């Protein structure tokens, strides 16, 4: 018997969920393994012992509760910016503007969280976070709208909006919003707007922000895969023309996607302010918005897979100074690892594109055939 009329065999033939999952995850794990191998080679080249360096990295990330808390602190913004980029990817857009959206969210929450409005915490804090989300959303909707309605490429606009946001924060933090003194930072966040502690560790306690970030991942995954809106959203990302032809409002989905992406990055900025620094510093982000691209790529834009990848990157970023201090190896090795991983994903996409697609020709250029 060859092919038979299609019928509902949902209970019979599909490979068990685990098998498909493994097939999906394998490429990313492979790429990471290669990246770490390259990292080891560089360690050896610079005169270090890869095993020692590895042990130091592990200790630096997870050796003490303080180190673990440090990893969490770095993972939270990476989860949200990674998710931001992933959401945009799902509708077929490239959000390079995570950094600007993050700054926009941070700025608004620093402005609203620094004065005691006489509000109880359960109103003030959510209001500040919603404002951060809204600010990021605006910063995302602008390029989304320009792309969907005017055909202007989102990459150009998001990059420009990055400059605007970062420079504006620079100016305001050193000028009008400056708290005085030598530091370029704003007035501290009032207690009513501060994210409560989840785990009090020295030196940096972990706030409930991590729960917010995890919840955002789960909610996004649920929306993408279990709601009609989510299915249509992904359809637009995979084939906008076909989506339009069946009556899905593709341009609206694109604007929505960039808005959501911006909102998530904005929320990351807000959480940095009310959950970690309790003030807004100029240049407070080491590039979380850009690292989010790497996170999303490695996680293959899956909202839940974002979490382990972000934690991995957070761990590398936390432990890298130990490399320098203890193992005597340049901390930039970590950046190399990250870079190789991203390259690997890019290469993989290029290669699988060229592999025989189910009904495609042997060599398939970038068009939807």
């Amino acid at each position, binding site marked *: *018997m*060859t*092919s*038979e*009329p*299609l*019928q*509902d*065999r*949902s209970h019979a*033939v*599909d490979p068990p969920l685990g098998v498909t999952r493994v097939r999906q995850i394998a490429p990313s794990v492979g790429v990471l393994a290669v990246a770490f191998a390259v990292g080891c080679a560089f360690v050896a080249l610079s005169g270090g012992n890869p095993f020692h360096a590895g042990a130091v990295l592990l200790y630096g990330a997870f050796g003490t509760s303080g180190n673990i808390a440090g990893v969490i602190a770095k993972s939270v913004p990476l989860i949200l910016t990674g998710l931001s980029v992933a959401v945009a990817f799902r509708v077929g857009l490239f959000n390079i503007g995570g950094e600007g959206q993050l700054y926009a969210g941070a700025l608004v929450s620093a402005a609203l969280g620094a004065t005691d409005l006489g509000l109880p915490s359960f109103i003030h804090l959510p209001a500040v976070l919603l404002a951060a989300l809204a600010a990021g959303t605006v910063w995302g909707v602008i390029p989304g709208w320009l792309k969907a309605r005017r055909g202007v490429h989102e990459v150009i606009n998001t990059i420009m909006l990055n400059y605007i946001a970062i420079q504006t924060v620079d100016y305001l933090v050193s000028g009008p919003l400056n708290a005085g003194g030598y530091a370029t930072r704003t007035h501290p966040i009032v207690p009513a707007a501060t994210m409560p502690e989840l785990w009090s560790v020295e030196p940096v306690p972990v706030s409930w922000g991590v729960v917010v970030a995890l919840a955002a991942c789960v909610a996004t995954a649920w*929306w993408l895969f*279990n*709601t*009609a*809106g*989510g*299915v*249509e959203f*992904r*359809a637009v990302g*995979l*084939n906008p*023309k*076909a*989506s*339009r*032809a*069946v*009556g*899905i*409002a593709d341009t609206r989905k694109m604007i929505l996607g960039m808005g959501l992406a911006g909102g998530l990055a904005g929320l990351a900025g807000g959480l940095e302010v009310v959950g970690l620094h309790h003030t807004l510093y100029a240049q407070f982000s080491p590039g979380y918005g850009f690292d989010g691209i790497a996170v999303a790529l490695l996680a293959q834009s899956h909202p839940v897979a974002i979490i382990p990848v972000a934690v991995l990157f957070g761990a590398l970023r936390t432990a890298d100074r130990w490399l320098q201090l203890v193992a005597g190896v340049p901390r930039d090795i970590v950046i190399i690892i990250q870079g190789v991983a991203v390259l690997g994903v890019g290469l993989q996409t290029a290669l699988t594109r060229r592999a*025989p*697609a*189910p*009904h*495609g*020709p*042997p*060599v*398939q*250029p*970038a*068009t*939807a*055939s």
Partner: protein
Amino acid sequence: MSSEPAIKVQNLTKRFGATVANEGIDLTVGAGELHGLLGENGAGKSTAIRAIAGSVAPDEGTIAIHGRSLPLGSPVAAIRAGVGLVAQHFALVETLTVWENIALGVEPGRWGLLDRSRARRHAGSLIDQIGADLRIDDRIEDLTVGNRQIVEILKILGRDSRVLILDEPTSTLSPVESERLFAFLRRILDGGTTVLLVTHRIQDILDYADRATVLRQGRVVHRSQRGTWNENELVDAIVGETNVERNVFASTSGSRLQLRAAGLSTNQAGIRNLDRVSLEVDEGTLVGVAGVAGNGQETLIRTLAGLVPHEGRIVLADTDITDHTAGQRRRDGVAYIPEDRHAEGMVAPFSVVDNVVLGNHTRYGHRFLLDRNRVRRRSAELIQGYNVRGSGLDAPMAALSGGNQQKVVVARALSSQPRLVVAAQPTRGLDIGAAAEVRRKLVEVAQRGGSVIVTSADLDELFDLCHRIVVLYAGRVAGQLGRNAFDTGKVARMMTVGRDSL
């Protein structure tokens, strides 16, 4: 050399999971022969030829080209052996021009520099050889499907393939274009090239092929050759025992006006694909739109579907839908069957289930949550009666054979009880049985009181199906013929010179 067959396939077997696409296929194609490969949708034709071209790695079997055995699953080895495959679905870069696409991958030049003028000359001479109505500087995205097909073929021919494999090249070509293609193939056959041709048009085989092989359910069920074959025998071998009824026309009638389109004009990058086209269609009526490819038929269909900005008015059963988006028109009762299923008809990585209900997901859920079981049940219901074959509802759409994908696209469009169906080549890629089935479904729409506007590369199909035929020439209505005035000569004249009389 000539004593060895150009293609010798032995015991070819390929499974996709539980689906056996090819089972012990033996196929021998002599050098300089035009060999037809036939079979119903999902019979395994594309899989077999993709195995020969190395883009599918068979599980078992051997393949030899001109006596030299090929390593399996290596496209590079196949190309070196002189095999050129023109796939069922296009692989053109839409934003590039004709000559750039032809040059792609085999750019002439030295030291990595592209020799532009040589590449352009090469493309130009190929176009001249085949006599195509194409300019080397046309952008692919502006071409009709038929012309894209020609570019695909030129692209492969430009690589000096000695064994040319074509997967359903004629399914989108008008008779004139097909004739041109075969005249060209005849010339290269005489020059010693071998051609293996997959087609659903028996006439292609009867008119031009030397031998034919028929597959069914992955196996060879029939072999015959010029001189001994006859049409009925081939049809029987392809579809099994079923009788294919060609004549589906039913004299339905309705008196109320369903659609009034007045003065439709489009302007796409300065090109007026439609120029003041007016059209009225009654309830219960099927109207065929004929024309040489590129004269506005597809644009008319897409304009009515709401996918092309246009001037003029469109009124559907008393409602002015001129300003309605594609989504609104769909809800107004307009169903669209696109000409290019890959570009506009499906989301390839999505499951068959999700493709069947695409655009309707919001109907199946409580508030936000999607009711997966309902979606699955509903889509199983919707494709029932279309005989979609493949390896399950949850398999990705990309894993269906071309014809089965087309059935899903048609099923989706007709599932919504539309008032007006606008269909661009709805039977493209379907086997004889499935094509007849789709024609019957279109007639059913009319019997229910709906209306159908349909294009086809095959005039006879329109003659079989329609109450009236409208001929477009250079974006304008060149003339209309009622059913009792149908006449191939008349239509052909209108198609080629824009009016009935010379």
